[in-house]
């Protein structure tokens, strides 16, 4: 199968990679670029573990072909923390014990980032609706929702750069 050269911006860096046309963005992130923070839970868009932000839009990277990101900007979980440390969403996940096993956590962190970028002051209902594309089997979502709402409060007081 012929391969394609793709140039994209990933977590703020210009990146070039070669992929086959049937490879997903998830495969390229994990296997070609070594960004294994993005997780594979179902491979068909139902669990959100592979969530990334593609040009400002929350997507399941298992449903995006790698060739589709040419010229676009991708943010993975590895790109959420800032130069000075954890993003408030990450910090609140830790303080609220919003993870148990941690496999769904990267997807939730990325989804929460997209939520708060889009809607800085979500209600509990809005947060639950937005996060309904991310499955967590450990927590029952209680502490996740609380962590996201708490992060929104922190960001309201001092927006992250």
């Amino acid at each position: 199968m012929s391969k394609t050269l793709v140039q994209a911006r990933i977590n703020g860096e210009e990146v070039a990679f070669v992929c086959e046309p049937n490879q997903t963005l998830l495969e390229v992130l994990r296997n070609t670029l070594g960004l294994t923070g993005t997780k594979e839970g179902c491979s068909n868009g139902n669990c959100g573990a592979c969530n990334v932000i593609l040009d400002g839009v929350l997507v399941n990277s298992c449903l995006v072909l790698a060739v589709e990101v040419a010229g676009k900007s991708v943010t993975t979980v590895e790109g959420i923390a800032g130069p000075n440390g954890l993003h408030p969403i990450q910090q609140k996940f830790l303080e609220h014990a919003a993870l148990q096993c941690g496999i769904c956590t990267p997807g939730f962190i990325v989804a929460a980032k997209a939520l708060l970028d889009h809607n800085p002051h979500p209600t509990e209902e809005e947060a639950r609706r937005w996060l309904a594309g991310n499955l967590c089997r450990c927590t029952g979502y209680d502490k996740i929702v609380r962590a996201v709402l708490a992060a929104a409060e922190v960001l309201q007081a001092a927006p992250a750069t």
Partner: protein
Amino acid sequence: MSGENQSVEQPTYRVVGTRPIRPDGVDKVTGRAIFGADVRLSGMLYGRVLRSPHAHARIKSIDTSAAEALPGVKAVITGRDFPDPQNKVAASGEGTVNLRSLAHNCIARDKVLYFGHAVAAVAATTPNLAEEALKLIRVEYEPLPVVLDVLEAMRPDAPLLHEDLRTNEMGQRSERPSNVANHTRHERGDVEKAFAEAAVVVEREFRTSMVHQGYIEPQNGTVLWNADGQISVWCSTQAPFDERSQIAEILDVPVSKIKLTPAEIGGGFGGKLSVYLEPLAAMLSKKAGHKPVQMVMNRAEVLAATGPTSGSCIRVKMGADRNGCIVAAQAWMAYEAGAFPGSPVDAGAGVIFAPYRIPNVRIDAYDVVVNKPRAGAYRAPGGTNAAFASESVIDELAEQLGIDPLEFRILNGAKEGDRRADGPVYRRIGFIEAAQAAQAHPHYSAPLAPSRLDPTGKNPAIKRGRGVAAGFWFNWGGKSSAWASLNPDGTVSLIEGSPDIGGSRASIAMQLAESLGVRFEDVKPAVVDTDSVGYNDATGGSRVTFGTGWVAYRLGQKLKQQLKERAALLWDVSPEQVQVEAGMFSCNGHRITIQELAAKMHETGGPIVAGDTFESEEYGPGFGVHIVDLEVDTETGKVQILRYTAAQDVGRAIHPSYVEGQLQGGVAQGIGWALNEEYVYDADGHLLNASFLDYRIPTALDLPMIDTVLVEVPNPGHPYGVRGVGETPIVPPAGAVANAIYHATGVRMTTLPMSPARILEALGKV
């Protein structure tokens, strides 16, 4: 926080009961933590499995030549590449596993026994190439009759899965082959007489479907069978040492040839106690010329071919006298084991009447094979099925007697000294305290929670109701080993062998910190491979914070003793004279901190290291009582959970946030089991819903906040009073939801899941 603590006594602890940030937290929120599928080795190949399209068939031939000829394919294996282990039973989590069954489950030999059963496997240079190669393998099958339902499988004329399987009929081996692997009976008193004399008797039959643990991380295994015969395994497992033994038996190599490194594990709930891919990856690695091979299941494989828990048929009959005392209880329980014997029906028999003091009891438990995947453990294995049945019947008894359902449970509740229906006598337990905590919770006296489906409250089709139910789990102690060594700055490195599946690095490190008298931040825990620490039983059975915590406590005491000896040496006194308080050692006006002693350790005798191993049988069972408010849309059959409260005797909450999390997570899984989750097969045994779209687990939108009440009745068998907490909370929800649906609609649901279609059917609307 959402929860509250109710403690019968509150000793002063500095670390226990606080809520520090977990040591592995930063790696897990930044994507840096290495889970099994994240392992990357040089020259790594990718393996895929060819799976049976039939639920029951004889394998007549397998031709792998075309797959082997595909460029990039490095190895192809079938069942013929493996030795055939004897029937031998080994430990697996709280239960046991027959190694021959396990070997045949990993890869079929002569017969496939369920849809998705592994038949062959390929290793190639890319995952896609391995997938392509699978299509080139030709398998000739002779399809056989299929049996999927537990009651049909018990019939004498049912198709047989195993021609050599005989029923173990209470210790006697049956003459005829059967799908019934085992029948156990527990009996006490005279149930017939007691039922004849009872004022009220309720009897019902319940059915539940096979359901999956639903961990988000698929099974995986990365194996290098090196040229020197050493086998290195990286995988996500709850049981590194047990899986090491399983792999050794299946490959017929000495256990010392295998080093298993447990990666971070993305959920297990009992589903990651035994191997699926690891032996295949090992054999592929050997055959491919000692190259590492990584295998990762996709979601369809996880659902079709790992170890879900049993569907079941349970008949419960209970009777009470006019005063509301339960006088007799009888249960007939048949559980689907899947393709090989070993359902959790015996555990279900222990759970079914556990919270109650009942003088006359009979329980019959049947383990039955069917053409479905081999059942694995799932959080309180067998318990949710059982409690759904018994807690529904108890609710009905209370109603017929006109007694409040919580009051009825307290009236009949088991206490210290009472004997459980299946034998053991309870030590100090907290069922009554948990039930009273639920009764006293504002939820129980509040009006029903407001509707979400009908905010205006004007739709007569929306019916709301409240239900309660109780649950029990045995818990487990098991064996743990660990090491602790003092660093020159006074911190402690803790080496443990219990995979951290939900924050146990924190709860174990906290117990060492408390015991030694240092800060939580001064303990650095690490979970290591099977060559680097002594044997540890599985992370399961709700045992790690109890059992490995016990070892951490003992390590703290051992380090403290060594530090006293060092201080004594410095001051020329005897170690018994040295006093210690919160990390400060003193004697005759001398004072020295742990940090100062650590800095002097090489002048006072060298490294300070402690190792220990321990097993305690005094693990202390757990009891929970749950309250749920819900609404039923009687037009669509949809059920919406409105409010949920879980009270549980947790012994002592070491890290309350993670204890609350265990309760909340168990409740969420229980609600999924109650309302949506089920394996759907066609008549030929093809699984029809092998995806997270069609096998629907609860989302954030399906659940409310889940309130918790941590009732602390300290376990006398643990230095800090710990009881296991993880499994009990999945036991009550199905019963509580069923009882709430009854109180909303007047209809008793007796089949799980209580999906919209089943609700409408029960309401007579379809």
